[in-house]
Every structure is written in C-alpha cells, then in structure tokens.
C-alpha cells in the first residue's frame, strides 16, 4: 500500500509539471511548414536580420518595397519612389487604406517612426537607415528621406530590414521583442507559438495583397541539424528547408526538389595590402600570384561537390557590380605564380599566419598544400567558433579564407572596399578605389551607375584585393506539396516565393 502511494505521488508530481505552452501545429495542404536553420532572436524592429532569419519577421512586417526573386526592386507599401538629381532625397508615395493589425493606420508618420527607430536603435542592420539624415512628412501618404549623402543601396535596404514596418505603437515596447505587430500578410499566433520550438502565423484577413500569399497558415520550426532537417522533410513534417551539397543526392533519391542559386562567394581576403604584417602582401604581384595558386575548379568539384561557379570577383549576379568578363582574370598557374613571386623579390616565398576556422576546415590542408607549391608557408591559428567573426574583423590576420554573402552592390562595397569597411580588416586605404566609388555613389541610378560600380569592381580584381575561388550555391530543398522560387541576394527565399504545387 505504502509503495503504491509513493509511486502514485511520484507519477502525479511528474505529470503535474505545467505545460509551458502549446506548440506543434501539424503540416497540412493549407499550411506552409518551413524548417529554419537558425532560431529567431528577436522581433524588435531595430534588431531584425536578413538571411535565414528574414523568414521569421517577413510574414508579419510588410516592407516599403520588395525584391523580386530575380533581384528587381518592386513597389509594395510604397507604390512609387523617386530620387532627386544628386541622389540626396528619396520621395516615397505610400499605399493608402492599409492598417496595422492593432488598428494603427499605416501612413507617413508610421514610416518616419520606423525608420528613425531603426536608425537610432541597436541591431545588426541599423546601418540600413544610417544614411537617413531626416524624414520629412509631405502628406499622409507621401514623405521624403533626406540623406546625408547618396546611398545607392537605399532601395535594397527599403525592400528588406530598412523598410520593414511595425506598428508605431509597439516600437520600443519591451514585449515587442516577442510579440510582433505589423501590417503584413500574416499575424503572429502567440497562442500556438513557442519560442525556440515553433513559430506559427495565421492569415491577416485585412491584408491588401492576399493573393500573393496563398497559404492560410505558416509555421517555422528551427531545426539546426542538417540530418534532422532532412528527416523532417522526408517524413513530411515540413515542406521546405535549407540544404547543403552533401544531401543533394539523398534529397533527389527521396523525390524532394532541390533548388540552387549562388548567393555567397568563397575566397581569400588579402587584407594586409599595406604590408603592415606581411610586407610581401603590399606588392600587387604577390597578391596576383596568390590568385593563381589555387586550383579552384578542382576544389569546387571535389570539396564543394560542384555546387557553385568559379569566379575571380567578390560580387555575385544579379549584383549590378558583377561583370562576367572579370571571371577568368586569373587562371590556376603555380609556375607562373612562382615566377611572379620571384619578380616581386620573393623567390623563396614567405610565411603568413592564417586563422583556422572550424566551418572551413576542409579547405585548410588544400590551402597549406597549394600555397606551399608556390613557396608560401602558412602558420595556422585555431579560432573558436564563438569568436570567429570578431577574430577575423580584429585585423590580426594578414589574410584569411571566408565565405561572404553578396547583397546589393553598395552594401557589399561598404562591407569591404572603404578604408573603414569592416571586412577591410587591415583598414588599407586606396585613394584610386575610393575615387571610383565616389563616382559610382554620385552617379544617378541606372546604367551609368552600374558601369561605375563595375569599374570599381574591376579595379579591385586587377589589384587582387581578394583571391576569390567560387560562388557557392545556396541549396534549398522542398517537397512535392510546394513550389519554391529562390531569392537573389538572400540565402533562403522570402515567404512570398512559396506556392502550393497544385
């Protein structure tokens, strides 16, 4: 009797652990069930991200503009836009009759509040509003962004985090990190979502463009592990999720659809162009020799399984700075590379310290061997995964291998081309390049501006700022229930790129 009582008490104690929240909305034909690689970190307007995490906020926060799958900028909440002559004023006309789901009207005041909140906030993408000096309200449905200087990336920014619109009533509120309120195609279903487990979105009945979002419900389940993601896809728990090269064969054998599009590029950043740490790197002949030292075709084929395209430039199409004629500038030619090194005064090569990054470990022995073939010795320094970015940006390393995402060309130039750019880790200044960039910045948008950006790209390629290897395909896997269009300049598709297969 006593034993039974104890057993009953233990059972009751275990079962009485209160259910923290409900979750697990199952998949169905009316539901778009996505697997996310990363968990969402915040819904705070100032902390939103692009890349993988864009899928979490985009259902709720509509954007002023949007980028079509081919990268073209399209109207959305802003129906028209116009730059002034010198590119320092951007006039936006807004869609009328739109309301946030808390009843707050969407108008010029709401846009001003959102842009100023982002610009003055703390987050990874506050830079997207960094060029905005002030916001002038022309009328309820029209406003002007006064820029500190022309920002050729502004339209791309307004199509992503820079243009995301949250209800002004929620901006800065503590609970806005977990309870997003927007005017987008879906409403975040707090009752059925559990942070870290599953995020559930139900259709916004008042959305102005419901036809573009055919699913009644959308769920995103964070599944970090590739095998688990594949199992969830194969068993039908989720409709789509990011893949990797090593599972393409398995996915195809399981009758899943594999979509591919290059978004990132992989290559060496030859940062110490002033030769502060390794004098040899200040000589353009040495940097060109490094570009000729790697058999990128073989590396792409045998390590990256062929999912990509060999390149010599740090831009990925459809970036306006991309110039197809630059691919092929440097061919794999170790003998010629050794000759260039000798000509530069390094017949016996030189030594260089590089960071050994866990995620790029398969490439470490290849770099060691192929640089050794031209006489360059690499000393590797292990970098823990939690400090990788900070270590690379610290400027400690004269050169390093990294995989960088390509976005709008101006965002990319800002990442690595200016003296104060974060990925110009040695802060090397090049006045000729900055003059080319200034010209691109002050040229009105269009063919001339694209040509100016390509000229800046050409300068960087010819002066071997990098040793790019190849553009890497983003691999995305979906089941037979959905059709997916890949998104240019983002590693996963936007929520509007999905449709039922039937």
């Amino acid at each position, binding site marked *: 009797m006593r034993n039974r009582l*104890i057993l009953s008490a233990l059972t009751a104690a*275990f*079962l009485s*652990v*209160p*259910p*923290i*929240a*409900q*979750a*697990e909305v199952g998949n169905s034909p009316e539901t778009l069930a996505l697997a996310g690689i990363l*968990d*969402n*970190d*915040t*819904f*705070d307007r100032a902390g939103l991200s692009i890349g993988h995490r864009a899928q979490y906020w985009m259902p709720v926060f509509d954007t002023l503009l949007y980028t079509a799958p081919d990268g073209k900028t399209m109207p959305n909440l802003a129906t028209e836009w116009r730059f002034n002559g010198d590119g320092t004023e951007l006039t936006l006309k807004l869609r009328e009759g739109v309301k946030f789901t808390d009843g707050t009207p969407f108008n010029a005041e709401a846009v001003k509040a959102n842009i100023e909140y982002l610009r003055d906030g*703390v*987050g*990874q*993408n*506050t*830079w997207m509003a960094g060029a905005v000096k002030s916001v002038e309200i022309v009328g309820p449905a029209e406003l002007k962004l006064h820029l500190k200087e022309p920002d050729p990336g502004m339209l791309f920014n307004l199509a992503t985090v820079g243009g995301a619109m949250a209800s002004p009533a929620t901006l800065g509120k503590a609970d806005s*990190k*977990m309870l997003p309120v927007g005017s987008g195609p879906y409403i975040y279903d707090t009752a059925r979502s*559990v*942070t*870290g*487990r*599953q995020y559930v979105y139900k259709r916004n009945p008042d959305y102005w463009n419901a036809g573009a979002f055919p699913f009644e419900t959308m769920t995103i*389940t*964070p*599944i*970090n*592990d590739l*095998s*688990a*993601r594949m*199992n*969830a896809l*194969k*068993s*039908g*728990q989720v409709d789509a999720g990011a893949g990797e090269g090593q599972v393409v064969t398995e996915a195809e054998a399981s009758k899943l659809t594999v979509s591919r599009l290059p978004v990132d590029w992989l290559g060496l950043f030859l940062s110490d162009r002033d030769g502060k740490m390794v004098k040899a790197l200040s000589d353009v002949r040495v940097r060109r020799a490094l570009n000729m030292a790697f058999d990128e075709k073989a590396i792409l084929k045998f390590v990256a399984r062929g999912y990509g395209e060999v390149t010599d430039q740090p831009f990925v199409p459809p970036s306006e700075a991309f110039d197809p004629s630059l691919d092929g500038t440097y061919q794999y030619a170790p003998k010629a590379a050794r000759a260039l090194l000798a000509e530069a005064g390094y017949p016996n090569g030189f030594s260089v310290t590089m960071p050994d990054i866990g995620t790029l470990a398969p490439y470490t022995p290849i770099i060691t061997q192929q640089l050794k073939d031209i006489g360059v010795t690499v000393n590797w320094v292990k970098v823990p*995964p*939690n*400090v990788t*970015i*900070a*270590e690379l*940006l610290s400027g400690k390393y004269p050169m390093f291998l990294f995989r960088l995402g390509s976005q709008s060309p101006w965002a990319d130039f*800002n*990442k690595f081309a200016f003296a104060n750019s*974060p*990925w110009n880790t040695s802060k090397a200044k090049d006045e000729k390049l900055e003059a080319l960039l200034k010209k691109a910045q002050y040229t009105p948008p269009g063919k001339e501006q694209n040509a100016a950006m390509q000229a800046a790209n050409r300068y960087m390629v010819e002066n071997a700022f990098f040793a790019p290897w190849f553009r890497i395909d983003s691999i995305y896997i979906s089941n037979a229930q959905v059709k997916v269009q890949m998104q240019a300049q983002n590693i996963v598709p936007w929520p509007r790129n999905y449709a039922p297969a039937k």
Partner: protein
Amino acid sequence: MIRYLLKRVASGIALLCLVSTVTFMMVFGATGNVARNILGENATAEQVTALNSRLGLDRPLMVQFGDWVSHAIRGDLGPSWTMSESVASALASRLPVTLSMVTIAVAMMALLSAMLGIAAAVRGGWADRAIQIVSVAGFAMPNFWLGLLLVLTFSVQLGWLPATGYVSFGASPSAWAASLVLPVTALVLSGIASASQQIRGAVIDALKQDYVRTLRARGVSPRSVLYRHALRNAMPAALTVLSVQFIALLGGAAVIERVFAIPGMGSLTVSAALIGDVPVLMGVVVTLIIVVVLVNILIDFLNAWANPKVRMS
C-alpha cells in the same frame, strides 16, 4: 535522517556556490567579443563599446559577479543577451522538455535493466550470456546513431512516429508521448547495459550472502528471497548507477536533442555557448546543479527506503 538530509542540502548549496563562481569567472572573463557577435560585422567600434557598457561588461569582474549573485538569489537570472526572452523564461520552456525525456528514459532503463539483470543473475547459463551480449551491444551503439536508425525506420519509412520536434503534454498527451518515443528509445537502448550489468552483479553478490542461505534453510520461498531480501540489498548499487545515468543523460542530452531537433536544455546550451550568451549559460549551469543535487537527495531517500542499513548508518 533529517540531520543527514540537511547535511546533503547544505553540501548541495555549497556545490552550487562553488560551481557558479568558477563558471562565472571562466565565462565572464571571456566576453570580449559578445557585443560584436550581437551587433554583427557592420557595427562600428563606438556601437560595440556602447553595447558593452549597456550590458555592464565594462565594469570590474567582481562587480559584475556581485550584481549577478544579488539578482540570482532573488530568482532573477536576468535577460538573455541574444534571445528575446528572459533567461528564466528560456529555462522554463526548455527544462521540462529535457526532464521529461530524461526522466522517462531513466524510468524505462530502471525497469528494463532490473528485469534483464535479475534474469541474468537468477537464470545464469545461456540466458545470462545472451543478456550480457545484448546489453553490451546496446552499450556499443552510440545513441545518436541509434536515433538516426530509429528515425529512418519509424518516421521516414513507416511514418508511424514524428521524425523531429516536441509537443507539450498540455497541447496533446498523445502527441507528447509520440514525440518522445524515439528519443527515449535511443537513450534507453544505449544506456541499459551498465545498469543491467550492475544489477546482475549486485543480485549475484546478494544471493551468495549468508542471510540468503539462512532464509532458504528456513523455507522462505525463492520468490520472496529474491524480491523481498536480495533485491533490496542489491538496490543501492543499481540506484547509484541510475542516478549517474540520469546526470549523464541530462548533460549529454544535447546530442539526442540535435538528432531529433528537440528544443531542450542541450540545444539551448550549445547555441548560447556558440554565440557567447553568458546569462543563459549561467542559468543552465545553476539549473542543472539544482537538478543534480535534488536527484542525489532523492536517490538517498530511495536508498534509505529500500535498505534499513542505510537508514541506520
């Protein structure tokens, strides 16, 4: 007994203080890159400095520690640096997930290893050898590998059970049970070997004792000798193994949580460690120590209940 328990609680509190202090000094001493991780590559040095200041990381380490302790003893583990929820909220949603998985696994392990261990000890011969081979085979198979095998068979091929995820008991008891079947099976199969071997050895030892011979001589039934007397004496060893298993599973759940995409303590710890979310790491450490201390006290209770010698000592 009460004095003994008070001593155990006091030593648990001392352990909690010691491990928390050491962990704090280790992890807070290496927070130089946290602000950069949070703000990303495009943040300026000024923005990084401002965030460091906002997080209080520009203060002396001892001041930070004092601040953390003063909040922690009031149950306030602070906000996460990288997630939208507080540390307490993150732990409250993840701990039941891991605890339910591990508790059920250990309960199943106890039941199965007791059956196997007793059968092997009592029957001997081919049954003993067969059980030993099966248990050692389970031990040799890593739980993540078993997990993958189970998912491929029962989720992908047969479609009987969910491949990934976790459902709260309150949302649907049947879906909750279904979401735990495969991860628990993987944990049980790979952990059953040591417990069953321990029980087998302890029962064999107990059955060789003089008092067992006396009981048999007095005509006590073999069933009563085994279950009422020998098993009770064998229990402390088995309980110790199971408590060690529980603690090991609690710490090692990260692997199986990853295979089944279960959002528990393991996955929380890994993601917090990778990005340097120190408040979450501290919360995890404190919570796990409390659970470990409570499990040890519970085991002491069970030992005392099962074996009068323990109560006497």
